């Protein structure tokens, strides 16, 4: 089916997807050491529930959810817990975070849950609980705990589940390959999600540059009357939930709202596949498909990797590097993070490891803004990046917000087309952080002010009460005096 609705802005980046799609997904073995970070999701880190030296089985819970937007983590294979220690996070900040280190025993003994479940008989609530228990997060990159979306979705009036198979980032083909090879499971998972949120139909949006995936999904959808495969144009950032919803439904998510406000919920195809595995195979999220690509890489391909696998080992298993990459990335080139080194582990959100050469990055020194408006045209949100950058540079975050900073999705389309090579996303990330800081500061200030005002009011009240009591006492005393004198008079 042809697309119905136009998406505004966006860019058509060099796709470079063909390098990694000529081979099937390769299931990679068990590395000598696994480091499973406690923080692989949007919210608070998981709480470790294993101790040093403990033997764990494949799929056993090793970190429990701990509060706000947290997700549980599981042992990717059987082995011994070496301990919990700090490791470098896959982030250019060079900050470290906690991870559970497991030395695999090579047996890969599977943990069998006590109560087997019947997938057909599950209630909506039970599905959400199982998804929660399996530690599934949004695998498109946002890593928001999937169960929270299911629970919120079931409370609202969601009629359509949109399956995000757009995979708009250049180089990335992990979702493409997943749909080609495991379409039936993807749709099975989607049916479970549909049930969990009590929606009526599933629409899978796939960009028109993936004909094989479209075909596979269409074939798998034949058996389902409530599934539609929608071919959408190839344009970055089509995979952003807001843009995908607009293209598929023609409606926009109100600013500050959620997609469920307009009756839809978006889940990535890989997330849907993970839900299928969790419920039909009792397998929590312990592995994922990762795209390895970039010109500095010997054999670009897709691999299914255990969470916690060191990137270095992964690269060695897959042919290694051809040349020293100018930049190593985790994720796609448009929104991915720079990897400070290859010692970091694969996390749930790691859709790709890219080893890029200078030629691919095309970095250049920054020139002044010539106000050409390319960024305005490229912005899929209708913002004015040049003005946002101008105000951000001057530390005027309110000004930047006025031109759309708070609606910015950091997709990087503006910086991609900027002839002056201005690092716009860099500015916006910084400005968003600063603005949040200022807001917290001013909220703190207001709180302090309200406390001191309350204190002053209380003191005044107490003083007034004291004065009133004193006056009353004095009046009573006077009355008594008067009474006694009256008595005397009598």
């Amino acid at each position, binding site marked *: 089916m042809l697309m119905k609705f136009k998406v505004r802005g966006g860019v058509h980046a060099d796709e470079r997807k063909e390098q990694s799609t000529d081979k099937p997904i390769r299931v990679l073995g068990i590395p000598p050491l696994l480091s499973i970070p406690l923080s692989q999701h949007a919210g608070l880190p998981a709480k470790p529930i294993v101790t040093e030296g403990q033997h764990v089985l494949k799929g056993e819970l090793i970190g429990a959810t701990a509060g706000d937007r947290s997700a549980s983590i599981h042992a990717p294979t059987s082995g011994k817990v070496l301990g919990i220690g700090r490791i470098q996070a896959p982030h250019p900040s060079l900050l470290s975070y906690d991870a559970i280190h497991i030395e695999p025993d090579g047996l890969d003994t599977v943990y069998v849950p006590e109560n087997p479940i019947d997938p057909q008989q599950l209630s909506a609530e039970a599905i959400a609980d199982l998804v929660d228990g399996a530690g599934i997060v949004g695998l498109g990159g946002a890593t928001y705990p999937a169960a929270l979306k299911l629970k919120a979705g079931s409370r609202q009036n969601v009629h359509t589940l949109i399956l995000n198979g757009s995979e708009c980032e250049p180089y990335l083909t992990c979702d493409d390959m997943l749909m080609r090879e495991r379409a039936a499971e993807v749709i099975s998972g989607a049916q479970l999600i549909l049930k969990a949120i009590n929606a009526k139909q599933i629409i899978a949006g796939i960009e028109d540059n993936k004909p094989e995936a479209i075909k596979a999904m269409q074939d798998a959808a034949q058996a389902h009357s409530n599934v539609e495969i929608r071919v959408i144009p190839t344009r970055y950032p089509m995979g952003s939930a807001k843009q995908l919803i607009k293209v598929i439904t023609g409606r926009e998510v109100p600013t500050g*709202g959620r997609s469920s406000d307009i009756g839809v919920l978006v889940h990535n195809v890989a997330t849907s596949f993970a839900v299928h595995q969790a419920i039909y195979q009792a397998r929590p999220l312990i592995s994922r498909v990762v795209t390895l690509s970039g010109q500095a890489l010997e054999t670009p391909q897709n691999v299914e990797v255990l969470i916690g696998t060191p990137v270095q080992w992964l690269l060695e298993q897959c042919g290694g590097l051809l040349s020293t990459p100018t930049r190593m990335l985790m994720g796609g080139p448009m929104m991915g993070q720079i990897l400070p080194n290859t010692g970091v582990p694969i996390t749930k959100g790691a859709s790709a490891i890219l080893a*890029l050469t200078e030629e691919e990055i*095309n970095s250049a020194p920054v020139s002044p803004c010539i*106000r050409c408006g390319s960024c305005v045209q490229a912005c899929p949100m209708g*913002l004015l990046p040049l003005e946002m950058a101008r105000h951000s540079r001057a530390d005027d975050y309110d000004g930047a917000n006025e031109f759309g900073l708070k609606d910015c999705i950091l997709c*990087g389309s503006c910086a991609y087309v900027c002839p002056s090579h201005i690092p716009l996303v860099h500015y916006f990330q910084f400005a968003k952080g600063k603005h949040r800081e200022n807001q917290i500061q001013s909220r703190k200030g207001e709180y302090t002010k309200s406390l001191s005002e309350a204190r002053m009011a209380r003191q005044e009240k107490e003083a007034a009460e004291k004065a009133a009591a004193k006056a009353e006492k004095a009046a009573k005393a006077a009355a008594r005096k008067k009474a006694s004198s009256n008595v005397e008079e009598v």
Partner: protein
Amino acid sequence: MMISSPHAHDRSSVERTMYLVCFALLPATLLGFYLFGWPAINLWLLCIAAALAGELLCLSLAGKRLSFALDGSAILTGWIIAMTLPPWGPWWLAVTGTLFAVVIGKHLYGGLGQNLFNPAMLTRVGLLISFPLEMTTWANVNPITSATAPGFIEGLRITFVAAPLTDALTGATALGHVKTALTASIPSSVSVAEIFTLKDALTGFTRGSLGETSALLMLAGGVFLIWKKIIQWYIPVALIVTVAVMATLFNSIDSERYAPAIYHLLSGALMFGAFFIATDPVTSPSNVKGQLIYGAGIGLVTFTIRTWGSFPEAIGFAVLFMNALTPIIDRYFRPRIYGYNYKGTPLKAAKE
């Protein structure tokens, strides 16, 4: 190290933008060299050299990278000024004018990207007001290959010694002729017929600055820039349509007094202005709505000054006038943001 995404780029650059504009100007420039000979070439070289010198001076004073001088912006400014001068004008007109544009028009405002007004148009208007005689002495078309054309040495003499040109060698531009005729109560219908032929206007065999010669080559250059996505069609189309509509309207009211649209569109620097001046990114609005308003505004002011003002050509004035309004246009006309309605209030969630 730059640590933020994206880690890819579409390979555009300021240099590419500037040099593609220069490239688009090349055909009309070469035609100008052919029509007006060595003096035109001298003037063009002087403008480019002065622009580079001014740019280098300002960059070093401001402590910026000197390599910015080759980003193409200074060369383009010099080039555009060369296209607005009388081709046989004296050297000091080119040098002072270009230095004024680069030093005062551009760098005093903070350099590339910071200037409120189009530097080349500041120069054009400044020179026109300061040196009205030199700026309105238009050499006759005298192709460089013809026997009467000045040779290289003669060309140097015309540019540098700057002896006043004899009347035999000069004449009025089409716009100037029609304007003068009107003051002498000769109807436009007559004066336009005297000086304006469609073929000459299209091919450029007409008196004027290099930018006022061939409407066809300017149009081709403009289309090239739109194709290369260096400029967008909004400003030029809004400008041209506005002038065409105004001209047609008034011409149909009184064809004796008001010249037809085709004359307005093809004479003077209208095409040059529409595609190369008004589209200057720095001094024009940054989004579609603003650009349409801006283009239409330039068309309106141009037609108004051409028709009722005292100057025969008005693109420069009109561009500067709309430059002044650009910040306000940018402030009040913005794209609709996703998740908001056109008034800028958030969309409402679905009723449950």
